[in-house]
């Protein structure tokens, strides 16, 4: 049985079925990310003045990741345009670059996550707060490479200053005895409201990047045989995957300023 409207548009919608399907799916995705964005904004607006942690993220790394995703969107479209002109070889080059960009994005994001999971905050029983990357930890002592938080600036501002200096590679080795520690924890999702929503939003986004890359990789390599038998349908598949990729990139274009800059 032949599947209808894989190439020619339906008369009632004016579109082929896969395009209608992907737009319906993207509409549901907009609601998912919209709800998370709204949560972030409400939590941030509701935070006490000076308490919301800003500057915890490494802006140059986020900028590089943004450039990577913008480049990948350009190569997706150029690949699709090449297929429209019947140039499969050019499409394959463009789409391979897209997949490499996706891998680069996930790799850089993983590094950022690793940085946060190895970045610790230690509060001692005498009220001092230390912030830095974990060098070593045993039953007697914890060694951090970082700073003591300057409480005079306010806690959030002090943590921000320590993080910025840490991104610049500054800091000194601090030895803290385990018996003196009141609380110790890394900057993972459980650290505070900001890190939990940061990991939720960026983790969900990274899953979308991985999913999109898997689909495009399938179309590019194992699924490429369709180009010989049904070139128009194959081109439509590439267009639909490109639409999803653009959605994922658009989400990042909004995530980057909201999480990293503002």
């Amino acid at each position, binding site marked *: 049985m032949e599947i209808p409207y894989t190439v020619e548009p339906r008369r009632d919608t004016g579109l082929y079925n896969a395009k209608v399907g992907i737009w319906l799916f993207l509409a549901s995705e907009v609601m998912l990310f919209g709800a998370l964005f709204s949560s972030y904004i409400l939590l941030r607006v509701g935070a006490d003045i000076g308490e919301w942690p800003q500057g915890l993220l490494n802006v140059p790394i986020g900028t590089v990741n943004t450039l990577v995703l913008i480049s990948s969107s350009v190569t*997706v479209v150029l690949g699709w345009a090449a297929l429209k002109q019947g140039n499969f070889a050019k499409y394959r080059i463009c789409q391979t670059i897209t997949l490499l960009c996706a891998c680069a994005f996930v790799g850089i994001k993983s590094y950022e996550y690793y940085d946060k999971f190895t970045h610790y905050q230690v509060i001692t029983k005498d009220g001092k707060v230390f912030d830095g990357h974990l060098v070593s930890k045993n039953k007697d002592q914890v060694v951090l490479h970082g700073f003591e938080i300057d409480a005079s600036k306010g806690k959030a501002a002090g943590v921000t200053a320590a993080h910025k200096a840490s991104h610049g590679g500054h800091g000194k080795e601090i030895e803290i005895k385990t018996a003196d520690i009141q609380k110790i924890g890394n900057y993972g999702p459980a650290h505070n409201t900001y890190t939990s929503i940061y990991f939720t939003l960026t983790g969900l986004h990274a899953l979308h990047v991985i999913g999109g890359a898997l689909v495009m990789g399938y179309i590019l390599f194992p699924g490429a045989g369709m180009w010989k038998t049904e070139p128009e349908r194959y081109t439509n598949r590439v267009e639909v995957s*490109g639409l999803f990729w653009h959605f994922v990139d658009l989400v990042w274009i909004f995530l980057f300023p909201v999480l990293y800059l503002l």
Partner: protein
Amino acid sequence: MSLKAIHILFIIVSTMLCFGFAAWAFWTPSGADQSVSRVNLVMGSCSLVLGLGLLVYGRYFLKKLKDVSYL
């Protein structure tokens, strides 16, 4: 809405982000003495150039795909 249409939207939003980011980088004090750091100046300049590059690319893209439908 075709890939062409959403790509144009994407380029417009990306261009706005580039110029916005450049403005953020040039005007946000990040140095110890509340001055704009060298890293920010470099990032802002690159972002400005990228924004202009995206405008040029957008024109090229519109010309290249002028026969493709927006639907």
